[in-house]
C-alpha cells in the first residue's frame, strides 16, 4: 500500500486531527503536522520543477486508486477514483494552504489560554487545511467537492464556541446554512455537468474529453448553476452577506484558513471545472459575471469604508478583493488566469496575515473599535511596522505579491483589445477600468484604519507590546512569502505559465 507524496500531504493533517481526537497533545501535534506539510510541499515543488522539463504531461505526482469502474465496450474506465495530482495551479494553492496552516497553528493560543474544547481548537484548523488540500489536489470531481465540505462543520463549531462577540451563534448558523445551500446548488450543477458529459466518469481529464459535444443551451444553464454555486462559496456580490460577519467573529485560525484558503476553492473550481468544460456557457454569462464582480469591488468596497470596527472591515475587504480574481477569470485568457491564480495566492497570504495581526490587536487592546484606538505605533513600533507592511501589501503596493496579481489581471482584461484592435473598448475593458477604481477605495479604507489605530497621539491606558521573536516568526514567514512572489514572481510563474497555457478552451497570447 505505497503512498504517493501528494496523498501524504493531503492526509497528513487529517491523520493528525484524528491523533488529536484520540488524545495526543493538541498544539504540538498540530505544529508537527503543519511543519511537516510545509516541508513536504516544498519538496513536492522541487520534484515538480525538475519533472516539468522532461515530460509534457499536464499533471505530475499522480496517485490513482479506482473505487468504482464503469464498464464500456472499450473496457472498464474509472467512474469514481481517489486520484490526486499536481499541476501549476494546484501546486500554488497547496503552497498557499500549507503556509497559512502553519501560520494559523502558530498564532493559535497555547492550550492553557483556551477556555474549553482545547482539542477542537487545533483539530478544526487541521481538518480545514486537510479539506482544502484534498480539494486542490483531487483529480476526481467527487472528491474535489467532498474534501471541500470537510471544513463546514469545524467552522460551524469554531465560530460558535471560540468566536468573539455576542452575535457569534447567529453568525455560525448563517455561514453554515448559507454554505450548505451553496454547496448543494453546486452539487446539483456538478451532477448536471457529469450527466451532460455522458455520466460515465468523474475524472477531470476523461470528462474534458467529452466536453466538445455539449450543446450551447445545456452549457448555459449548467454554467449558471455552477457560477451561483461557486459564487456563494466565494462570496460573489449578492451572495456575500455571510462572509464579513463570519470572518469578523471567527477565532483567528479559522478566519485565516477560511478567508485565506477555503474561499479559493470556488475560484479554483471555476478555473478547473466550469471554464474549460463549458466555454460557450462562460462566454454567454460573462457580462453577468462582470456586473456582479463590479458589485463586489465598488459596492462592497464602499461598504468597507463605512465599517467602524477593524475586523468587519477586514471581512468586507476580503469579499471586495474577490472581485479582482473574478475579473481575471472573466477575461478568459491566459494572462487573466495567471493573474487570478497569483492573486489567489497573494490575497490568501495577505488576508491571513491581517487576521493574525488583527487577532493579536484584539487580545491586547481589548477592542477593535477604530474610534477607541489610536497612537499605538508609539508603544509598539515593530508591530506597527509589520501591520503597515501587511496593510500596504493588501492595497496592492508594488514589491508585494498582490500588486503582481492585480497587474496581470488588468493586463489580462485588456489583452483582447490588443489582439483585435478593431473591437475597441468592450464591456470587459469598461469593467476593468471601473475595477481599477477599487485600488483607490482599498487605499482609502486601509489607510484610514492604519491612521486611526496607529498614528496620532498615544492614548493613556492603551499600550500594545511588541511581539516576541516567537510570535513574530509566523508573521515574518507570511511577509517573506509576499515579498518573494512580489519581487521574484517567476518563482510561481514558472509553474503557472505552462499549466495555464495548456488549459483547454481559453484564449492564448498570439501577438
Amino acid at each position, binding site marked *: 500500500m505505497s503512498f504517493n507524496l501528494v496523498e501524504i500531504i493531503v492526509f497528513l493533517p487529517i491523520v493528525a486531527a484524528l491523533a488529536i481526537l484520540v488524545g495526543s497533545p493538541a498544539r504540538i501535534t498540530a505544529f508537527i503536522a503543519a511543519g511537516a506539510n510545509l516541508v513536504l510541499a516544498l519538496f513536492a515543488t522541487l520534484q515538480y520543477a525538475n519533472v516539468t522539463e522532461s515530460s509534457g504531461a499536464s499533471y505530475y505526482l499522480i496517485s490513482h486508486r479506482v473505487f468504482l469502474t464503469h464498464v464500456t465496450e472499450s473496457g472498464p474506465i474509472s467512474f469514481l477514483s481517489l486520484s490526486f495530482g499536481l499541476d501549476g495551479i494546484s501546486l500554488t494553492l497547496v503552497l498557499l494552504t500549507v503556509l497559512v496552516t502553519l501560520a494559523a497553528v502558530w498564532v493559535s493560543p497555547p492550550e492553557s489560554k483556551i477556555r474549553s474544547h482545547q482539542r477542537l481548537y487545533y483539530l478544526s484548523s487541521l481538518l480545514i487545511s486537510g479539506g482544502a488540500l484534498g480539494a486542490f489536489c483531487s483529480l476526481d470531481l467527487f472528491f474535489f467537492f467532498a474534501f471541500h465540505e470537510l471544513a463546514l462543520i469545524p467552522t460551524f463549531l469554531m465560530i460558535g464556541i471560540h468566536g468573539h462577540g455576542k452575535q457569534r451563534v447567529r453568525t455560525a448558523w448563517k455561514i453554515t446554512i448559507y454554505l450548505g445551500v451553496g454547496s448543494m446548488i453546486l452539487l446539483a450543477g456538478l*451532477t448536471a455537468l457529469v450527466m451532460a458529459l455522458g455520466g460515465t466518469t468523474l475524472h477531470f481529464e476523461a470528462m474534458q474529453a467529452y466536453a466538445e459535444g455539449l450543446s450551447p443551451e445545456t452549457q448555459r444553464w449548467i454554467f449558471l448553476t455552477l457560477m451561483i454555486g461557486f459564487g456563494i462559496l466565494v462570496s460573489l456580490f449578492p451572495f456575500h452577506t455571510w462572509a464579513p460577519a463570519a470572518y469578523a467573529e471567527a477565532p483567528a485560525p479559522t478566519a485565516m484558513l477560511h478567508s485565506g484558503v477555503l474561499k479559493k476553492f470556488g475560484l479554483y473550481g471555476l478555473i478547473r471545472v466550469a471554464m474549460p468544460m463549458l466555454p460557450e456557457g462562460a462566454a454567454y454569462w460573462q457580462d453577468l459575471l462582470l456586473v456582479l464582480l463590479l458589485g463586489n469591488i465598488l459596492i462592497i468596497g464602499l461598504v468597507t469604508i463605512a465599517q467602524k470596527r477593524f475586523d468587519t472591515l477586514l471581512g468586507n475587504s476580503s469579499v471586495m478583493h474577490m472581485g479582482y480574481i473574478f475579473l481575471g477569470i472573466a477575461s478568459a485568457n491566459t494572462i487573466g488566469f495567471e493573474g487570478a491564480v497569483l492573486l489567489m495566492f497573494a490575497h490568501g497570504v495577505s488576508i491571513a496575515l491581517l487576521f493574525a495581526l488583527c487577532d493579536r490587536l484584539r487580545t491586547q487592546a481589548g477592542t477593535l473599535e477604530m474610534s477607541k484606538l489610536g497612537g499605538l505605533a508609539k508603544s509598539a513600533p515593530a508591530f506597527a511596522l509589520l501591520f503597515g507592511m501587511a496593510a500596504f501589501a493588501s492595497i496592492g503596493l508594488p514589491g508585494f505579491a498582490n500588486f503582481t496579481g492585480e497587474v496581470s489581471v488588468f493586463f489580462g482584461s485588456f489583452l483582447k483589445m490588443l489582439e483585435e484592435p478593431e473591437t475597441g473598448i468592450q464591456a470587459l475593458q469598461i469593467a476593468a477600468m471601473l475595477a481599477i477604481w477599487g485600488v483607490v477605495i482599498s487605499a482609502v479604507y486601509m489607510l484610514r484604519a492604519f491612521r486611526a489605530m496607529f498614528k496620532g497621539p498615544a492614548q493613556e491606558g492603551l499600550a500594545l507590546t511588541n511581539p516576541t521573536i516567537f510570535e513574530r516568526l509566523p508573521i515574518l514567514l507570511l511577509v517573506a512569502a509576499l515579498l518573494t512572489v512580489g519581487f521574484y514572481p517567476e518563482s510561481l510563474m514558472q509553474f503557472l505559465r505552462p499549466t495555464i497555457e495548456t488549459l483547454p478552451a481559453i484564449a492564448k497570447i498570439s501577438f
Partner: protein
Amino acid sequence: MPAYYLEVIVVVLGLTLLLVEAFVPLGDRRSLAWLAALGIGVVLCLSFLVSTPEQAEETGRFSALYATDGLALFYKRIALLTTLLVLLMSADYRKILHQYTDPERPQSQAGLGEFFTLPVFACAGLMWMASATDLISIFVSLEAVTMTFYVLVAFMRRNVGSLEAGVKYLILGALSTGFLVYGITWLYGITGQTELSAISEVLKEGAVSKTAALFAFALILVALGFKVGAVPFQFWIPDVYQGAPTPITAFLSVGSKAAGFVVLLRVSEPFIASELISSNVITILTVVAGATLVYGNLAAIPQNNFKRLLAFSSISHAGFLLMALASTPAGGAISQFSISPVSAISFYLAAYLFMTLLAFLVMTLVRTQRGGESIDSFRGLAKTSPFLALTLLIAMMSLAGVPLTAGFIGKFYVFLLAVNQHHYWLVALGVVGAAAGFYYYLKVVRAMYWEAPEDTSAPAIEVSMPTKIALILLIVAVFIFGLDPAPLML
C-alpha cells in the same frame, strides 16, 4: 445451503428463546437479549455462505414464490443487522421498559422476555419480505411484520404515549392493509396472475385496460406509501415514532422502511417497465417524492423533541429514496449510466441504517440516563461525555449529507439519477430539503457543544462494552463507505 433456510433458522431461534424464557430459571432476563443477538449474529454470518440461484438445485414453483437474487440477500442482511442492533438497544433500554410495564414489582422482569424475542420474529418477517416475488407471499410477509410491530409499539402498557401510538398504528396500519388487499385483488383480477414476473409479461403486452391497471397500482402504492412513510400517508410516523419505545422506533424507521422499499422496488418494476402506463406511474412517483421531500425536511425545522425530529428525518430520507425510484428510466429503457436506481436505493438504505441506528443508540443511552427526549436534554453532552457527543455529531453530519460520509454518497447518487432523467424540479426540492437538513440536524449539535449542561453534577453517561463496540463499528462504517462505496454497491 438454499436461502430460505435463513428464515427457518431465525424462526427456530425465536421459538427456542420463548422456551428458554418459559422454562429455564434465568437470573436476569438480559441474557435472553445476548442469546438472541448471538443467534442473529450467527445467521448474519451464515447469510454470506448462502448459495446464489445458479447453484441452487431445485427450480420448481417455490422459486417463483421466493427469490434468492442479490437484492434479496442484501436486504436480508440489512434486516439481520438492524435486529442485532435493536436487540442491543433494548438491552440498554430495559430500565425505562420495566418502569412502564409493571412498576409495582421492582424486581420482576415479567414482560421483558417477549420484548427480546418479538424482534426476532419481526426479523424473520422482514427477511421473507425481502425475497417475496409473489403477491400472496408479499401480503403474508408484510402482515407478519406489521402484526409484530403492533405489539412491540404498544408494549409499554403503563405509558400513555405507547398505547396511543399503538392504537394509531393499528388502525391506520389495518386501513393500509385493506387498500393493499383491494389493490392485489384488482391486480390479480386484470392480469389473472399472482407472480410478479408473470404480471410483468401481461403488462408488457399491454392487453390490459389502462385505467384498471393504474387503479390497481394506485391502491398498492397507497399501502406501500404508508409503510415507507411517503407524503399523503406519513401522518402516523411522528406520533408513533415518538410514542413507541426507542428501540422499536429505530426498528420501525430502519427495518420496516427498508423492507417496504424492497417490496416497492419489486412491485413497481413491472408497472414502470410496461410502456402502456409507465409515464403515469413515473409522474405519480415524482409527485409523491417531491411532496415527501418538502414535508419531511421543512416540518422538521421547528421540532425540538429529538425522537420526533428523527421521525421527520426518516420521512425526508424516504423522499430522497422515492426521488431515486422516480428516476428509473421509463418504458424499460436502460440508461448508459452505470448506477441503476435499485443499487442507488440499496446503498442509500444501507447508509441510512448506519447513521440512523448510530443516532438511536446514542439517544437510547441519553434517554435512559438523562431522562429526556427533547433536544435540551442533550445540553452540554460534549463536556460530560465527549465520545457520545462525537458519535452523535458524526451521525448528524452523515444524515445531513456532509461529504466523506455514507449519507452524502447516497444523496450524490440520487442527485445523479434525478438529473439523468431531467427531473430538475425534484433536484431543486432536493437542494432545498438538504439545506433545511443542515439546520435541523445541527440543532442538536449546537445543544451539545454550546449550551452548558442543566445540572452540571450529572455523572458521565456510562456505555456498556457491546454498545461501545457497536458505536465504533458504525462510525467506521459511515466513514469507510463514505470514502469508497464499492463494497455496498449491488
